[in-house]
């Protein structure tokens, strides 16, 4: 078992996404990196930020940000400069919500609509990629994950 959102988990996640053919198909048009923001609750004491690079149906990288590292939120239409962790979207939720999503007890879109999770970024673009979002979760569920109980 690998601890959720550890660097080891992040590396497994790259492989999981890249071997998900349904994701590749659903996101073949997608460009735009994400920050997954995992907010503390229960057994998790500090916020975790994870950068996920996503480009045309592939995961180009996944890195857990170190303490003190920050990301840059790109404006709509802004071109990345090549600096690390420039993202178009942030998907934020408390660890217990992430846990429910990754255990398939809660749909990531339903979490969003119920206010348990929040997306920052170009909402219409996210709305057009609901199947891709679901497949990102499906990819994560293939990893034998340990949570912060």
């Amino acid at each position, binding site marked *: 078992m690998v601890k959720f959102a550890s660097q080891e988990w992040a590396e497994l996640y790259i492989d999981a996404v890249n071997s998900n053919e349904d994701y590749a198909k659903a996101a073949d048009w997608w460009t735009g990196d994400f920050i997954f923001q995992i907010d503390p609750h229960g057994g998790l004491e500090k916020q975790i930020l994870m950068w996920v690079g996503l480009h045309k149906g592939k995961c180009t990288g996944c890195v857990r940000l170190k303490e003190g590292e920050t990301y840059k939120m790109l404006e709509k239409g802004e071109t990345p400069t090549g600096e690390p962790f420039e993202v178009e979207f942030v998907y934020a939720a408390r660890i217990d919500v992430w846990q429910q999503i990754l255990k398939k007890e809660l749909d990531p*879109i339903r979490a969003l*609509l119920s206010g348990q999770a929040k997306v920052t970024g170009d*909402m219409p673009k996210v709305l057009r990629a609901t199947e891709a979002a679901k497949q990102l979760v499906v990819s994560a569920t293939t990893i034998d994950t340990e949570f912060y109980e």
Partner: protein
Amino acid sequence: MKAVIDGIIAEKRDNPKHTKRIESFEGRFNIGLHVEEDEIMWINLIANNGEYTVSRDALDEYDLELIADPEDLMFFCNGQYSVTHMMMKKNRFGKRKLRFKGRAYGKLLALPKILVLDKVEH
């Protein structure tokens, strides 16, 4: 849902094809988000003078009242579900995916043009 509606209207506003409609469309809508079998959360959308505001709770005076599961509403907004689908198919609670009250049929028919994202060729 506020972020969803605000995002769609902002995108429509940026598209010259929709500017006139967005500027001229007016109405007061209660939107019931059917979240649990016996629980509906109310928000409202007011379109007035080209301004759109989404707030909590239902309005006492409204043109149309819509009720839908938020997820179905989202699939309607992203174009995955058509109006016909929403009117004819049942939701996870066994009710029609889109129920409405009120006689402002013109506004009902115009609503998809305001709230449904344009198809984009990828």
